[in-house]
């Protein structure tokens, strides 16, 4: 049984279109095309509280995305979270007194790590650790602190 040329052509086109659909899903829709630098270096930072930070969250400097969170671990001795940051190899001039902070994009957005370079001569390299960190803000803590301050301001609260 021979299949006609048109049939073969159309089936070939069908398979190609299907593969193209999958390609669109991979590249245009999902994060596969996102941050995959050819050469990268990993640094770590310790935080008391990472809030809602997740693996693959962005790492930014001045709002520009320069890396991502590779993994999050917990240090059982120091009771702190250890966050490994995978940085694009192009940006390797960060001073070793760079500050890492966890912020939230927008009111309900995802959390990300923001780096603020310091003024030191030495630069961060593979395996360095950032000493200056600022934990994520937890809303409940903030509110309770605010209420506590208000109460302290007002003197003895009326019973």
């Amino acid at each position, binding site marked *: 049984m021979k299949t006609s040329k048109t049939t073969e052509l159309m089936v070939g086109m069908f398979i190609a279109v*299907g593969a193209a659909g999958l390609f669109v899903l991979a590249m*245009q829709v999902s994060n596969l095309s996102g941050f995959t630098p050819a050469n990268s270096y990993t640094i770590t930072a310790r935080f008391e509280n990472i809030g809602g930070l997740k693996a693959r969250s962005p790492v930014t400097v001045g709002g520009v995305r320069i890396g991502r969170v590779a993994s999050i671990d917990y240090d059982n001795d120091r009771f702190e979270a250890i966050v490994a940051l995978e940085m694009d190899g192009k940006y390797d001039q960060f001073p070793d007194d760079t500050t890492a902070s966890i912020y939230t994009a927008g009111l309900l957005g995802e959390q990300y790590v923001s780096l603020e370079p310091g003024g030191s001569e030495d630069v961060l390299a593979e395996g360095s650790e950032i000493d200056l960190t600022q934990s994520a803000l937890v809303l409940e803590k903030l509110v309770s602190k605010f209420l506590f301050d208000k109460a302290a301001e007002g003197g003895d609260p009326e019973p």
Partner: protein
Amino acid sequence: MDRYLSITRRRITGKIYSMLEWVRQLGRSGIGQFEKLGRANLFLLNTLAGLPELVRRPSLLVKQLWSVGVLSLLIIVVSGLFVGMVLALQGYNTLVDFGAEESLGVAVALSIVRELGPVVTALLFAGRAGSALSAEIGLMKATEQLSGMEMMAVDPMHRVISPRFFAGVISMPLLAAIFSAVGIYGGYFVGVGLLGVDDGAYWAQMQSKVDFYDDVLNGVIKSLVFGWVVTWIAVFEGYDAIPTSEGVSRATTRTVVYSAFAVLGLDFILTALMFGD
């Protein structure tokens, strides 16, 4: 008096007999279902055994890919487009209340890639290709073409069933991928084109929230499973049909009904396994 008693006794025993008869019928249909399940599994094994022959003669597969895959393309593309457009419209109306219409891309992409793409494609596929397969094979059986092949020492399992089965299994993920891609562009036309969601936000939020392995690949696995099950049901029901006009019509109906049940039930199980962390 004695006569009266015997009549009552006969009535009571009659009732017990009719009840037993009912239980017996229940048992018979249960055994019948199990027999059918066993036949279906043996049938599947036979079908899979046809794979080597299919590799030697790919033209059989190409012909079936045409009728199962290419001819289903139109309905898949049109439905995908409209499903995406409706999702964008509905999602926008809900999200705009929270000032989160920028997340429209995420909402549309996740619901299509994870659920609607594979499930709706499988349901449409069962209606478009599955019913056609059942009817075709059932009619071949009714007109004794299958027995004719056996007479000529051609195994109809390998010649007729295997190419159709594998064509369905190959087509379904491709169709689902096309459905998802078209649906997301349909959502883009409505969301960005008509409702004024920001172009960059639609794609950027989508790319940051949709994961290739967790979302896209799991959707592909789902569509592969659905393709397998739907085509299996379709070819088996056709092959197992009573070889009369009525039998073929019943087989076709059963294909669509069982496929819908199987797809929706399996979808729940697969979702629980894949996204239930």
